[in-house]
């Protein structure tokens, strides 16, 4: 078997994934740690105890390192839109371009102004104003994530817009439908709360390291208690928003849900696979088993997907080939409709060029009747409508397993902290420290579920990634892929090195 040939779109996807995943190492810590610092400083202002001020300053330094190294790494994603994803960026550009720019400027000034006060204003402004600035940094950081997550939500569930065949652009006709779509709302709440969880793990983990090293124990225990309470509350909220997000996926992206659970044949009382070894070689419609081994919980998937344990959940085969009995139109049928839409779009374009308004109007009318399946017209075979199942399944299960474990760690920390024996629980402190890494694994796995699970679509059902990308040579994207790999690895190593040095120094005694 020869080596697979990677095309431009493969390299463009790899480059975007690499950049986004590195970017997401820095972002969640900024989002969550900003609130934890605000809590620490609030306690300092309330009690007047200087030890809380020292503690706040220590975590603020680590926040500053992460912020400085991570800042602007997301802008590279915008570079890529213009170069590698020009068709996509043209089609959605005038919808998302302006709000993203406004949000960027607003959040930048909010953060930059108060960030300066937070870091350099300890002796220059009042305690109250300094605390206000710290809270504003936390609010500003989190607000800066709103519109990019709304845009991502829209790509998963395009709503509130109309395609204009004259300009080849999606035009917004209902701002609130876009901004408040359930997918966008849950995307924002789930993502930010998971960032709170990660930052709590970070604070708990580094503090646990101090306990293991028998250094700064008082400060470490104080930090752990606040972070464990915040982390536990965030974990519960992550679970709640995750359940809502999965329900939305079931209603609006059933193929993604089927891939998340490796469900090929739809069924009533559909089970959740608690653990399983998936057959990565299985294709839609073949006779191979979906799993080599699995442990199932009957009815749970039906309950999660439809809020009814007896309900029917469609599988990958139903969604690819259709299921007349269940009234499910498969990708096979949608490809026919999509090709009509594509042909009529081309027909409309030619008629307009010829100046034949009557023919153009007729073509547009047929296009409008079939446009909902436009994207399926680009597929070469119906099985292309299914995402990589094994990657989606394992990422989802890793995320859920870790997400279930984290609240238990926070509870154990609180239990032993109130018992007064936290510093003697070596196993728990080691687990807490190692959980920093696991927190990042869960974060990245969550994005893999969201993005790999919606393949082949750049915009769900309307635009596959192969059409969204630019017709440029694969070599160009390949070169910049390795440049980014080098740049981001250097930044990550710099972050780790500077953080480790600062942690070794520890808080001011």
């Amino acid at each position, binding site marked *: 078997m020869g080596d697979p040939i990677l095309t431009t779109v493969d390299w463009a996807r790899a480059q975007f994934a690499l950049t986004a995943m590195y970017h997401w190492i820095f972002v969640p810590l900024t989002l969550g740690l900003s609130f934890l610092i605000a809590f620490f400083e609030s306690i300092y202002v309330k009690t007047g105890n200087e030890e809380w001020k020292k503690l706040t300053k220590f975590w603020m330094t680590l926040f500053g390192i992460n912020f400085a190294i991570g800042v602007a790494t997301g802008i590279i994603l915008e570079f*890529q839109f213009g170069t590698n994803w020009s068709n996509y960026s043209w089609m959605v550009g005038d919808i998302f371009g302006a709000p993203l720019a406004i949000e960027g400027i607003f959040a930048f000034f909010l953060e930059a102004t108060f960030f300066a006060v937070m870091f350099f204003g300890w002796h220059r402004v009042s305690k109250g104003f300094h605390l206000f600035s710290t809270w504003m940094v936390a609010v500003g950081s989190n607000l800066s994530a709103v519109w990019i997550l709304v845009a991502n939500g829209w790509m998963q569930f395009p709503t509130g817009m109309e395609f204009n*065949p004259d300009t080849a652009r999606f035009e917004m006709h209902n701002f609130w439908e876009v901004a408040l779509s359930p997918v966008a709302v849950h995307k924002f709440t789930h993502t930010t709360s998971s960032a709170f969880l990660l930052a709590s793990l970070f604070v708990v983990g580094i503090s646990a390291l101090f306990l293991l090293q028998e250094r700064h124990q008082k400060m470490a225990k104080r930090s752990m208690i606040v972070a464990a309470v915040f982390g536990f509350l965030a974990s519960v909220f992550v679970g709640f928003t995750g359940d809502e997000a999965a329900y939305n996926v079931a209603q609006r992206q059933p193929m993604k849900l089927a891939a998340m659970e490796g469900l090929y044949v739809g069924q009533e009382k559909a089970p959740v696979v608690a653990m399983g070894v998936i057959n990565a070689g299985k294709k839609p419609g073949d006779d191979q088993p979906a799993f080599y081994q699995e442990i199932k919980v009957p009815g749970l998937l039906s309950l999660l997907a439809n809020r009814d344990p007896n309900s029917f959940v469609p599988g990958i085969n139903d969604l690819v080939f259709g299921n007349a009995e269940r009234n499910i139109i498969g990708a096979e049928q949608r490809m026919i409709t999509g090709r009509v839409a594509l042909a009529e779009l081309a027909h409309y374009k030619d008629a307009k060029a010829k100046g034949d308004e009557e023919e153009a109007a007729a073509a547009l009318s047929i296009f409008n009747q079939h446009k909902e399946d436009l994207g399926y017209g680009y597929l070469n075979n119906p099985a292309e409508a299914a995402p990589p199942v094994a990657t989606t399944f394992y990422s989802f299960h890793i995320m859920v397993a870790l997400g279930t474990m984290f609240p238990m760690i926070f509870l154990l920390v609180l239990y032993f902290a109130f018992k007064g024996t936290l510093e003697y629980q070596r196993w728990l402190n080691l687990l807490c420290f190692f959980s920093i890494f696991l927190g990042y694994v869960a974060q990245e796995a969550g994005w893999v579920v969201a993005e790999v699970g919606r393949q082949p679509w750049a915009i769900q059902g309307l635009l596959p990634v192969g059409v969204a990308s630019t017709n440029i040579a694969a070599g160009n994207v390949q070169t910049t892929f390795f*440049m980014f790999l080098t740049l981001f690895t250097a930044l990550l190593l710099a972050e780790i090195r500077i953080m480790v040095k600062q942690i070794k120094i520890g808080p001011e005694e």
Partner: protein
Amino acid sequence: MVIGRSLWKIIAIKLFIMFAVLKLFFFPNYLTTNFNTEHDRAEHVLDNLTRPPSAR
């Protein structure tokens, strides 16, 4: 404030690489660079959208 100086250096080098090297030489906006008017850009994207799957 050794740490502050290190961070400022990292920020400056990073921003220089991103904007003066990557953006300038490796990430031109494809449509802005290759087409002069909005109409031409729309035409190009429509051409890409309406190309039949067999021609991709």
